[in-house]
Structures are given as structure tokens and as C-alpha cells.
């Protein structure tokens, strides 16, 4: 029963949502929208579970004085301060209906001067790893790799002032060979064709997977039997 009931719930919810598309009348017409809201609400509780788990894991590391435990203190402190600043709107408009992102509030300051720089720099750091990946990718070992290299190179050059200057001397009849124009053409024609093939492939995969889940063939999301 512990595994059968969830499978039945998945089947009913999934199939009702698919059927509802063909019945544009109340209550079926709004089911998709309503279920999306239910999904969002349940997701918040899953988030609470995740936050609880974060505190449990790092609390355990602090309590048992694991290696690098002071960094766990930093994580717990960062989480707690951000959460309190946001939930209680410290320095901002009081009350539940007050503006969360009011300028000068503690939550907004933490977002602007702690969260944003950390996130932006973390992603910016990837530029160096992308450069390292470029070094490997830009070695034209075969024809396919050469095509990838050329497409990436034209796109990169086409978006820089250097790329614009490089072919600006071309006469008007050959303007389609100017690197920025070439980059735009690659993006809107062959790239679009490849993107469409990938999107259709993904869609077919998602549809097949959704059917497997709804019909109860795919049950891995329920976890192990022992749980």
C-alpha cells in the first residue's frame, strides 16, 4: 500500500490533467492552472524540508567538530541572517504586506552587497574554465569539431568590435560575408535548424517519460522499498 497509493495518485493527477485539455469547461478548464498553484505551494514545503536538512547537516558538522566546521558556522549564520532579515523585513516596511525589497532594508542590502557579488563572481569564474575548455574544443581533430570551432569562432568575433572592423572593408555586394552578418545568419538559420531538431527530440523524450510515469512503469521517484 505504501507504494501503490502514490502510483494511483500519480496516475489520476497526470491523466486528469491530460484529459482536461480536451474539456474546456469548469472545473476541467482551470485544472492545469490550479494544479500549478498546488505544485508551487507543495514546492515551498519541499524547500522548508531542504532548509531543515541544510541546518541539520551543518549543525551536525559543528556539533561533532568535523574538519572545516567553522565554515559550517558561516553557512548557518548566512542562512539565518538572510532568512530573519527577509521574513521580519528588518529595516523595511513592517507587516506582512510591506515591500520586501524596499531600498535600505537589511534584506535588500544583503541581496545587493553580499548575494549578488558572490553569485556574479561565482559565474564569472566560469569564464576561466570556459577558456580552458575552449583550448581543448578549439583543436580541430576532425570535420565535426572543425564545424563546431568555426561556428563558435564566428559567433564570438561577430559580437566584438574587432570582428566588426575585421571585415568592414568588404564591398556592399559581399556584405553578407561580414562577420557580424555571418554570425546573425548562423544564429537564425543553421543554428535554428539544429535547435529545432534538439527541441523536437527533447519533446518526444519528455512525452515518453511522462507516459511512463503516469502509467506507473517508471517508479524510481518513490525511492527504495526499504524507505
Amino acid at each position, binding site marked *: 500500500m505504501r507504494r501503490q497509493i502514490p502510483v494511483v495518485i500519480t496516475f489520476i493527477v497526470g491523466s486528469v490533467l491530460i484529459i482536461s485539455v480536451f474539456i474546456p469547461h469548469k472545473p476541467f478548464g482551470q485544472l492545469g492552472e490550479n494544479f500549478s498553484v498546488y505544485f508551487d505551494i507543495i514546492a515551498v514545503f519541499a524547500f522548508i524540508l531542504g532548509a531543515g536538512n541544510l541546518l541539520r547537516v551543518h549543525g551536525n558538522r559543528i556539533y561533532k567538530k568535523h574538519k572545516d566546521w567553522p565554515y559550517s558556522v558561516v553557512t548557518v549564520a548566512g*542562512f539565518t541572517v538572510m532568512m530573519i*532579515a527577509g521574513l521580519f523585513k528588518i529595516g523595511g516596511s513592517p507587516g506582512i504586506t510591506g515591500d520586501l525589497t524596499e531600498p535600505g532594508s537589511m534584506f535588500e542590502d544583503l541581496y545587493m552587497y553580499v548575494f549578488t557579488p*558572490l553569485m556574479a*563572481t561565482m559565474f564569472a*569564474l566560469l569564464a576561466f574554465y570556459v577558456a580552458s575548455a575552449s583550448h581543448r574544443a578549439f583543436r580541430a581533430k576532425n570535420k565535426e569539431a572543425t564545424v563546431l570551432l568555426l561556428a563558435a569562432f564566428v559567433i564570438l568575433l561577430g559580437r566584438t568590435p574587432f570582428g566588426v572592423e575585421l571585415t568592414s572593408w568588404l564591398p556592399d555586394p559581399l556584405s553578407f560575408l561580414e562577420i557580424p552578418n555571418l554570425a546573425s545568419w548562423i544564429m537564425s538559420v543553421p543554428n535554428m*535548424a539544429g535547435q529545432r531538431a534538439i527541441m523536437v527530440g527533447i519533446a518526444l523524450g519528455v512525452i515518453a517519460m511522462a507516459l511512463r510515469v503516469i502509467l506507473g512503469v517508471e517508479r524510481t521517484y518513490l525511492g527504495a522499498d526499504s524507505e
Partner: protein
Amino acid sequence: MDSVFSHTIAAILTIGIISFLYKDNPLYKFCESLFIGVSAGYWFVQQYYANLLPKLFDNLGITKLVGAENAPEGALQALFLEGRLDDNLLYLIAGVLGVMMLLRLSPKIGWIARWPLAFTVGSSAGLYFITYFQSNAMSQLEHTILPLNSFNNLVLIVGTVTGIIYFYFSKEHKGVFGGAAKVGIYFLMITFGASFGYTVMSRMSLLIGRIDFLFGTWLGLVK
């Protein structure tokens, strides 16, 4: 917060993350741990104010019940003050399913958490089935059915069809079919190359943004 002080904090955190390029060090570990904590806190608060409060508490009338002046009346007010069943009362189901999700923490009755999980998985499967079929499969194919009156249209049709042929693994890629799949690979390579180029550009612009912050906003060396 004083702007010099706040910019200095942001700059120290920026340098802390960049310092990883040298090697793993205590300042980077501090910044990394802080990032994990602060981002978890940020998304927690965002989820509360973007979903839990308006979609559950407001609809049920709990916000009004706790004394918020501007909060709308919800299902509980309709039930107890007006004596009628409001449609919003159905959000109680979502709330109950959410609470059931928290039972995962209990070893004895943790299995109950599978019910809300089954609901979310089922609703995702049902919604994705329809949306992917409509927007990704049918819509993309519809936009590929073009008149063969230009070179670009021809390239689009050939690229899309051969790309799809490459993803078809139920038939061996041999002969004409194999040739078409090979052409499809070249189109896919162009797509990957374009995506790679764009990724490099976006990461570089982020890096330029951080360097501009350090040398411009913080130190004032770049105007």
C-alpha cells in the same frame, strides 16, 4: 548602509571568490560557505513571499486572520463569517499535502511524504506532456513547414529534418539514412558551436562586470 562600507564588503567577497584561481584557500572557502547559506536564505524568503503567502495563506484567509490590515478575505472568512464554501478552500488540500511532505523527517511515518511527491510528479508529467507536445514538438514542426522559395528556408528544412533523423536510433545509420544523419550531425555541431560562443560571451561579460566593479565602482580607477 554606507556605500563605501557596503562596496568594500562586496569587493572583499568578489576577491575572495576570484582567489580560487590561485588555489583553494580559507578566504574562498569562507565566501563559498557564505554563498551557500545566503542563497538558501534568499530563496527561502522568496518562496515564502512569492508562493506560500499569496497562494496559500491569502487564499485561505490566514493572513487576514493574523491581523494584516490590507490582506484580502479568504476561504476561512467566507466559511465562518458568511457561512458559505468558497472555491479557495480547495487550497487547503495543497496545504495538507505540503505538511505531509514534512513528515519525511519522521522515520516511522516518512512514507506519507510519497503522496505529495506523487502529486507533484503526476501534475508535472501531465502538464509537461501537453506543453512539450504543443510548444516543442508540434509548434517547431509547424514552423519548419516552409515554402522552398529561398536558400534559408531550404537550409532550415534540411537541418531540422536531418537533425531529427540523427536522433532516431531505431534504424541503423547506414546508406541514405546514415548520410542524412551525418548531415544532421553537422547542423548539431553548428548549434553547439553557437551555444558555446554565446556561453563564452556571457561569462566574459560577467567577468568584465566584476572587474569593472572592483576598479571602477570600488577603487574609482576606471571612469
